[in-house]
């Protein structure tokens, strides 16, 4: 695009300025977390913490109920690892089946899968809760992570689309070399779908890290809380004095999300642009 200088300048003022405006609340949250709790709303218009303090971080890190914020982070990491294992294993197997194998009823099951993609969780929420409580799984991660081992329609769909772009000649060559179906999956397809698996892993991380409804339903003792649940409890106990600590821990929970995004930006952007995954 050929542009005259003033126009070019104006474009950047407009687009860049708007970006700053959009991100201003996040910047404000970040800066406020370094202000003294009592000052946050008195000096809300200023972006310079004066005096600068790390006290909010120290206080927030102490957590509540006798459990430090470190415990909540550890719990969330365990939650994320189980979800990753579940989604990566199950979705790659299922997607290979749909994309490569011929069997009676394939079209039917594929359609069922696409329909479940649009199913509101609310429709299964209450009976699931009853089933899991009958199984004695309440106040544990099991109700949240066990279903992950049976696939997630979004990621299955993403992987199916990806596998379909891999030439079938590769499978045929492997068959001639004597590979069975599982070996084709494991040795031929799996190494080639790593980018799509990366997208699956990243979005599994985001959704698990942010998941609030699941922990609200199933976790009820502080020692098992995830970070989103812990922040929710911070808010419920909100008093005038601990805004700062709450802001500080909010920032702490956002940092991993930003870090993962900046490392794996390419997969995130591609995942969204090609499948419409919601970030």
């Amino acid at each position, binding site marked *: 695009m050929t542009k005259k200088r003033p126009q070019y300048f104006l474009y950047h003022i407009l687009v860049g300025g708007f970006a700053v405006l959009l991100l201003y609340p996040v910047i404000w949250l970040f800066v406020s977390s370094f202000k003294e709790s009592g000052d946050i709303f008195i000096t809300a218009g200023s972006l310079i913490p004066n005096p600068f303090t790390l006290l909010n971080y120290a206080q927030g890190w102490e957590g509540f109920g006798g459990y430090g914020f470190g415990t909540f982070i550890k719990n969330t990491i365990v939650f994320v690892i189980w979800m990753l294992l579940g989604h990566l294993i199950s979705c790659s197997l299922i997607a290979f089946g749909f994309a490569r194998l011929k069997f*009676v009823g394939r079209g039917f099951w594929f359609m069922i899968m696409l329909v479940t993609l649009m199913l509101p969780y*609310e429709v299964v929420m209450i009976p699931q809760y009853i089933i899991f409580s009958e199984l004695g799984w309440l106040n544990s991660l099991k109700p949240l992570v066990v279903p992950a081992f049976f696939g997630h329609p979004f990621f299955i769909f993403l992987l199916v689309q990806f596998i379909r772009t891999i030439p079938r000649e590769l499978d045929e060559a492997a068959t001639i070399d004597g590979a069975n179906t599982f070996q084709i999956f494991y040795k031929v397809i799996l190494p080639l779908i790593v980018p799509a698996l990366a997208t699956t892993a990243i979005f599994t991380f985001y959704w698990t890290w942010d998941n609030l409804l699941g922990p609200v339903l199933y976790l009820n003792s502080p020692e098992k809380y995830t970070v989103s649940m812990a922040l929710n409890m911070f808010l419920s106990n909100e008093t005038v004095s601990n805004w700062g600590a709450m802001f500080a821990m909010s920032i702490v929970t956002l940092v991993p999300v930003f870090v993962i995004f900046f490392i794996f930006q390419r997969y995130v952007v591609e995942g969204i642009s090609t499948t419409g995954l919601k*970030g």
Partner: protein
Amino acid sequence: MSSRLRSNLWGYLFIGPFIIGFLAFTITPMLASLYFSFTEYGLFDAPKWIGFENYIKMFTEDPRYINSLKVTIIYVFAGVPLRLAFALLVAMLLNVGSRAVGWYRTLYYLPSLIGGSVAVAIMWRNIFGDDGIVNIALKSMGIDSIRWFGEPTAALWMLIFLSIWQFGSSMLIFLAGLKSIPASFYEAASVDGANFIQKFFRITLPMLSPVLLFNIIMQTISAFMTFVPAFIISKGTGGPLDGTLLYSLYLFKQGFEYFNMGYASAMAWVMLLIVAILTGIIFLTSKYWVHYESEGK
């Protein structure tokens, strides 16, 4: 073993987890919830069959339900179109050859990235506080500050703004769509003397319509199910005066605060029906406004 039997066996071996999961975690709970929706079912007693009573009560005796439906409809039908319009506008602004676009794209995407988190809901709650930066900005422009938590409509708009703020992922999808429109289309239109607005309505919008359809459907469904921001921003109450009592939040409260499991199940089925009808309408009308290139002219 015949090769057909073998290939069926392999197929079901691979998709087996999906089928088991579907039976155990989707279809069984769905049928159970359909049954519960026709019962009175508290926490401690067995479900008692009451026919359509829950459904009738919802629309005749429960003003909070009607209100939550109204609030959700405003949230969806104001939030989704505004968010998509915003996403399209910004995508078009960014669809230029500038080197800085990669950076802008990242910056505009960030709100979407973190938007679903509790941290952002807490942030939103505080910037809209009485002494928050939104009111400071309004005052500096000479507008009276608004008590966002004092008035149901203002509180609902606070939620809608949060949803619009997260236009980034739709913007990325639109940007990918815009890049796939051949530049020659616009050049030909310029030669014919088309202006900017004509180009937008005759080229951009039709070429983008399949992507638009997909986005409208998915975002309408997910907007209908919004839970976290309403739950956090109102501290689980749906207040003020039920102004932010979105459908999901009211359903959650009926099920897990008041333990009306039967009633909550009935609410879930009405929600499913609404989502299905909306999706159906969008699909059926799509042939009038969605343009697929392969159709030819």
